[in-house]
């Protein structure tokens, strides 16, 4: 019997990385059966049954030979069901049931159903991007949106019966030309009544991508405010949306709205584990901080998070990426997110509320506030008190700032900042205030408050940058004294027990 070795290209995921695999199939005489070598895991071994059923369902002949499938390189453990399709293609080509020519120009990834139907697996976007990089045509069943966002060549194969014809004769996948406007997801700041100060703080945070903490009693609307944050953020650039959608694709989450330009919004519950927040598990999946890449990570009830979980956020916030080390090696996920947090001021929630008496003693308040911890607070630029809205205003409603107005402000501020930075023309200045373009009176205000309030160095530089963002909103080339005064209003409260 002559040898028929057929090689088909495929890939598998390792973190958000895509690694190439070559599926080699050899037929030899003897007992009928399929043997998979090259460190397959259970899901890959189960491919045998799926491939056999799919082939039978689509009236292909099951080879009566010993089929040896090798997944090269053989030294890495292969996981997932995406290898079903390439294995089936390689077996069909080796047995001469589909044309063998030109198969090396394609990258096959897909899971097979028992009827031979091909379905998408997680990380489709990453595979398509990889195929484009390698100058291969992707072959599988991705969504049209994913293919058009990357603008890659793709043959849509949703059933292995399509392979009977030469692949090059299949039409290229149709592009999804429908342009999706940034959708506001039905949430608007118009619905939040009597919270104009908090809305201003959120506008500043959005304009300068500052971290923000909202402190207030229960029922004051902190969660409502945070949930509407995506509606005032500028749309993602194509590069950003692909980066973010790729992580969502790898995590197996829906990414259609991100590909439409909406920034992601992740709001993990406070019972989340470290692995859930920063990534982990087997197979390795990105955590919430990576799902919030180029978007917002909202931590509601910040003080309820275990402190170990909060501490794990420090490295991703600092380096804008998460590196997780396992025995098999390092996994790196991007995590450039903006932190929005909300908390009560004390366990009962009413500390500092003029209408309620706080029932907590000093030690309880201290313990509660210390849970958040200095290192996280250091990375929060703005702190805003959210008070309970007035009864009459809640019942009768009040026209406040709506999302469209706030978004326009944010967009203008970002545009202004970009223009200002270009104007500065890279003139290297050593001092912080010169770099941020402070006017002399503004610098004096900052200096005086720094001394009278005994502000620390880190806190001072935070106020300075926030004031710069406010100046951009107000379209001041040089930071004015009133910008600094406003920034001082949003500094962390001493009563929160946090090192100011």
């Amino acid at each position, binding site marked *: 019997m002559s040898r028929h070795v057929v090689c088909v290209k495929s890939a598998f995921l390792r973190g958000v990385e895509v690694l190439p695999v070559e599926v080699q199939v050899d037929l030899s005489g003897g007992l009928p059966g399929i*043997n998979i070598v090259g460190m397959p895991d259970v899901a890959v071994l189960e491919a045998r049954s799926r491939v056999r059923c799919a082939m039978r369902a689509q009236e292909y002949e099951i080879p*009566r030979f010993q089929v040896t499938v090798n997944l090269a390189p053989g030294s890495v453990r292969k996981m997932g069901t995406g290898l079903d399709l390439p294995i089936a293609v390689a077996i069909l080509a080796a047995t001469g049931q589909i044309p063998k020519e030109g198969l090396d120009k394609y990258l096959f990834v897909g899971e097979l159903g028992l009827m031979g139907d091909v379905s998408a697996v997680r990380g489709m976007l990453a595979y398509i991007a990889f195929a484009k990089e390698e100058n291969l045509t992707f072959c599988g069943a991705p969504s049209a949106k994913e293919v058009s966002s990357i603008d890659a060549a793709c043959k849509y194969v949703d059933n292995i019966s399509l392979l009977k014809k030469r692949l090059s004769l299949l039409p290229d996948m149709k592009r999804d030309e429908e342009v999706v406007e940034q959708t506001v997801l039905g949430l608007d700041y118009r619905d939040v009544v009597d919270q104009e100060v908090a809305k201003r703080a959120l506008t500043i945070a959005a304009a300068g991508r500052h971290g923000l903490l909202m402190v207030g009693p229960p029922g004051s609307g902190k969660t409502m405010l945070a949930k509407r944050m995506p509606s005032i953020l500028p749309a993602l650039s194509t590069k950003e949306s692909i980066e973010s959608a790729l992580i969502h694709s790898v995590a197996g989450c829906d990414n259609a709205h991100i590909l439409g330009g909406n920034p992601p919004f992740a709001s993990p519950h406070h019972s989340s584990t470290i692995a859930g927040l920063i990534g982990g598990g087997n197979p390795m999946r990105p955590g919430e901080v990576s799902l919030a890449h180029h978007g917002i990570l909202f931590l509601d009830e910040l003080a309820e998070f275990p402190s170990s979980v909060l501490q794990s956020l420090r490295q991703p916030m600092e380096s804008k990426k998460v590196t997780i080390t396992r025995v098999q090696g390092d996994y790196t996920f991007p995590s450039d997110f903006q932190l929005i947090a909300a908390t009560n001021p004390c366990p009962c929630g009413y500390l500092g509320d003029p209408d309620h008496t706080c029932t907590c003693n000093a030690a309880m308040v201290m313990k509660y506030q210390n849970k958040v911890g200095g290192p996280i607070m250091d990375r929060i630029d703005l702190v805003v008190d959210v008070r309970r809205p007035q009864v009459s205003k809640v019942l009768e409603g009040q026209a406040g700032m709506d999302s469209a107005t706030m978004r326009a402000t944010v967009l203008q501020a970002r545009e202004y900042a970009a223009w200002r930075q270009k104007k500065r023309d890279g003139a290297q200045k050593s001092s912080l205030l010169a770099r941020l373009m402070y006017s002399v009176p503004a610098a004096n205000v900052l200096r005086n408050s720094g001394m009278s309030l005994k502000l620390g160095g880190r806190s001072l530089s935070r106020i300075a940058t926030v004031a710069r963002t406010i100046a951009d909103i107000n379209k001041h080339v040089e930071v004015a004294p009133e910008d600094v005064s406003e920034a001082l209003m949003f500094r962390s409260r001493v009563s929160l027990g946090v090192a100011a």
Partner: protein
Amino acid sequence: MTPPYFYKTIGGDMKEKLDFILNPEAVKDSSVSIFDIIERPEKPIEHFSAKELGKDGERVATLYLMRKGFEVVDLNWECKLGEIDIVVKDPEHPRSAILVEVKTRLSLKRTDPVIPELNVTVEKQEKYRELALLYLAFHKEYDSVRFDVIAISEVSQKKASLRHLINAFCIDGE
């Protein structure tokens, strides 16, 4: 070189083995009942011993395969490891031997159906794997095998239901 005793096979003349067919002309004539052209013990089937019932099933299966157009190559191919009931060849795939295991059960008055093929357990499949390798070693004219199972439930004296499981199982690696 003679094979070691362990692997020694009991051959025999195929013509002799097919002696149980009483009327060779009627083999291809589907209007004649299979039970009328095979040799059977002269007693009611409920009095058949297990061995007699098994033999009866094998004969029915052989006739069935002949009528289906398969070429019977060997019957009761034996070695010390065990026995292959029937070996047939599909004229379309002359290089592939089809090893057939026949399972026969009596199903006279039972309400629940008898499923003889359930007796092809994983352990037995492992045995067939070894048998198949041996068979291939002795028969260079074949390069691959197929495992079929024929399940026969004998319902009355001249009535039986037969299921032919084509490619009943494969031998996958671990």
